[in-house]
């Protein structure tokens, strides 16, 4: 039933196209701008942040942002943040982090969770509120710890324990306890496995990688470039106003400035080893499990001007996408490739109308598969309902300061990292410059966005 829909019909019935012009034209809502960002360096799982909770890291990222923009004691319109791996006690993670930060305790906050697109979705929600005039400022954020991940008891044991709590008589209690078996005691740690397929994210990507014929060399080249570009950005001081050190870390722990295609070529494949085609995905061209947090300060023009704060970029428009990966129709991480043409159509842009592209490097192959899809006449016609291929992009404009392969990928923190990084690049590039973001997520989803220099 859903298959009968075409992207064209979605476009015509979709919301009012966002203006890519710099200012509101009176009929469309006012614009929401990116003022700046702050994140803590990303650590590898089990590294320097091993004892830091999501709340600790998010609070640190908030405090760095507050300091950068002189917001101590200020009531910000709203803070939206989230984590993918979340303890049940952290149901109010964003609000609790605000209360521990230098912000006014009168700053409201809410939690968001959309897998790896969480960080992007916090930006979406807050910019919409700003555009509607409901708030003047907002802080979007995301955090994840794979070191301090929640471990829960097995479902069977949980059922028994809940029955036990409801038991009234000693006999009922004894009966409940007597159902416990040693096997129930094994704890369940979170995995990156997809509930509907049982496959890990890497194995899913390996299927897509093989289907699209992405080579090992291409993946390793992309990974090496990511490291080299991120290292260069650090050396240039690019992150001086985007990052605040935390727990002794001043750069992303995963960054290997001295890596090379040759070194990466020596690594053994870890995903897709049971496929018919040779396995190509290694620990070097896949993101590692990471810990970290990021934040982005969003505002109306008036709010920023009142405080003399910079205005880096406008969040022009966003689009969420999802694909039917469970039935094998599309690759798990390909929803961005599907969402981008809709976003382009709504904004009257072509894929080549951008100065920068930020495609989240969940795996090097994810980026390459996205590009391959857009270059494929067949895929674009048949699966995306387009007249032809979207075409190729200038690779020198892609992830110019590195991305998740080098920086690491604390799931919910990646969106904030990318938005702040791109916004700064666009300011440097100059007025009218435009950037495209695509962040894929578990469950076959993605959030894509257009930013424009303010």
């Amino acid at each position, binding site marked *: 039933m859903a298959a009968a829909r075409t992207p064209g019909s979605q476009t015509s019935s979709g919301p009012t196209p966002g203006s890519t012009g710099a200012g509101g034209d009176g009929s469309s809502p006012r614009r929401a701008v990116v003022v700046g960002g702050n994140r803590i360096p990303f650590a590898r799982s089990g590294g320097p942040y091993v004892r830091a909770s999501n709340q600790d890291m998010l609070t*640190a990222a908030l*405090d*760095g942002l*507050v*300091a*950068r*923009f*002189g917001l*101590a*004691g200020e009531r910000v319109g709203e803070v939206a943040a989230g984590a993918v791996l979340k303890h049940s006690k952290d149901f109010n993670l964003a609000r609790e982090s605000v209360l521990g930060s*230098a912000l006014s305790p009168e700053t409201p906050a809410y939690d968001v969770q959309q897998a790896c697109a969480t960080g992007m979705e916090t930006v979406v929600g807050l910019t919409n509120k700003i555009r509607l005039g409901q708030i003047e400022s907002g802080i979007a954020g995301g955090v994840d710890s794979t070191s301090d991940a929640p471990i829960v008891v097995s479902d069977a044991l949980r059922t028994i324990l809940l029955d036990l709590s409801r038991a009234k008589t000693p006999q009922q209690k004894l009966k409940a306890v007597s159902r416990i078996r040693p096997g129930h005691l094994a704890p369940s740690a979170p995995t990156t496995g997809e509930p509907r397929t049982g496959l890990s994210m890497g194995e899913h990507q390996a299927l897509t990688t093989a289907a699209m014929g992405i080579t090992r060399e291409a993946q390793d080249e992309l990974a090496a470039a990511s490291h080299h570009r991120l290292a260069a950005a650090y050396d240039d*001081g690019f*992150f*001086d*106003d985007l*990052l*605040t*050190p*935390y727990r002794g870390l*001043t750069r992303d722990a995963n960054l290997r400035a001295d890596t090379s295609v040759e070194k990466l070529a020596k690594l053994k494949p870890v995903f897709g080893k049971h496929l018919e085609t040779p396995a190509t995905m290694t620990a070097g061209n896949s993101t590692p499990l990471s810990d970290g947090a990021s934040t982005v300060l969003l505002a109306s023009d008036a709010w920023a001007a009142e*405080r*003399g*704060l*910079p205005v880096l970029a406008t969040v022009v428009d966003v689009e969420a996408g999802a694909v039917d990966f469970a039935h094998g129709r599309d690759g798990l991480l390909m929803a961005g490739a599907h969402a981008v043409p809709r976003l382009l159509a709504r904004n009257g842009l072509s894929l080549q109308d951008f100065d920068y592209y930020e495609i989240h490097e969940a795996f090097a192959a994810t980026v390459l598969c996205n590009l391959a899809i857009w270059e494929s006449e067949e895929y674009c016609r048949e699966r995306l309902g387009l007249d032809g291929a979207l075409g190729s992009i200038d690779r020198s404009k892609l992830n110019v300061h590195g991305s998740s392969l080098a920086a690491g990928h604390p799931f919910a923190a990646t969106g904030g990292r990318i938005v702040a990084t791109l916004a700064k690049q666009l300011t440097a590039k100059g007025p009218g410059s435009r950037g495209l973001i695509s962040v894929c997520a578990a469950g076959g989803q993605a959030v894509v966005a257009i930013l424009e220099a303010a």
Partner: protein
Amino acid sequence: MTDTYLNLVNTGFTKTLAQRLGLPRPAVLRRHRPGDPLVTGPVLVVHDAGSQAEADALAEQLLGWDLDVHRHGNRDDRFGAILVVLTGAQAPADLGAPLLTTGGVLRGLAPGGRVVTVSRAPGDAAPAVAAARQGIDGVLRSLAKELRRGATGNGIVLGDGVEIDAPSVAGTLRFLLSGRSAFVDGQLLTIGSGAGELPADWERPLEGQVAVVTGAARGIGAEIARTLARDGATVVAVDVPAAGDALAAVANEVHGSALQLDVTREDAAERITEHVRSRHGQLDLVIHNAGILRDKLLANMKPETWDPVLAVNVTAPLRITQALLDGDQLGTAPRVVCLASTSGIAGNRGQTNYAASKAGVIGMVRASASALEGAGGTINAVAPGFIETDMTARIPFATREVARRLNSLQQGGQPRDVAEAIAFLVSPQAGGVNGQVLRVCGQNMVGQ
């Protein structure tokens, strides 16, 4: 860090023991807290025969501050401070009477008391006049060494043509009387002009001013940020990106903002200007506090231990100050303060690089005074002596104990003591103090 010895000789049984044994007993210094009285008792004003009018004017000023002012003292009187006005001295013989009067009441000076001399700079005066004036220098420095129980002695020197009612005379006098100058001892500060103005609120003299403090993430820099904010300034805290987390904590604490910046960058001034001008519209106060140590004997010195010390400690302040002046980026009454060091005055074994940079700062300050005056402002240096910081806590125990006691107050200073001196120098009431080096060293035995 804690001075355990100081605590022991001031409390309980060990206090009695120290008294019996005649051990040196460093006092707990009287440090300013907002709302504290200016001095701890009546103020005696004495003067030489030629200074009646000026002594009257200063007594009037003290009365204006609601102080209990006495013009005559007896041996049994207890004074919180003694103001010795010697501006009219024409010959060395003129000093005797007022100083002997001072000596007569010195034993009754309250703990944390103050002796402040007011005199004129010798300059081109006739030999006898110059001898009298220069003599005061020797008197003051010796007198300060005689004081005990946290009392200090300092002097105000009026430059050529500076009247007694110059704002900075009152401003400096108030600073020296107060707990803000707790670790300033045996120093003479010259008022070079009638510039400056008295603040509307003495507790918040920096209200509405915007300050940049480099090296603000920790130690003395963090304390400068806190003190300037307490006095009303909006603080932009600057430190290297690697110290960003500590910097953010300081910036948030003082409700200022943080700027992660290596001051040795070519575009440092530009970045500071961009941050400050867009947000606050002006830059009034610049505190060049960022400094590093790379101690080595000159015989073992390498470029990697020499160059960075000079780059951070003196080249960066030079370049940033010049760029701010050239770019006309400062407010209407700008204040610049650089951190010098007693090492830059007296020298220190193993610190040729550091001393070169800190003596360099003193040269820079003196040579920049006229340019800043032209811009309506001032530039001065503060030279800390032994200050209790993370840095000095790393000095080996015995060396540290000796270094601490080698001054008239027999203890190390606190970072806030340095910060208080800087807060004074950047205040509107210090507008007549320019091109000076103010030591905050408890009258360290080394150097001048």
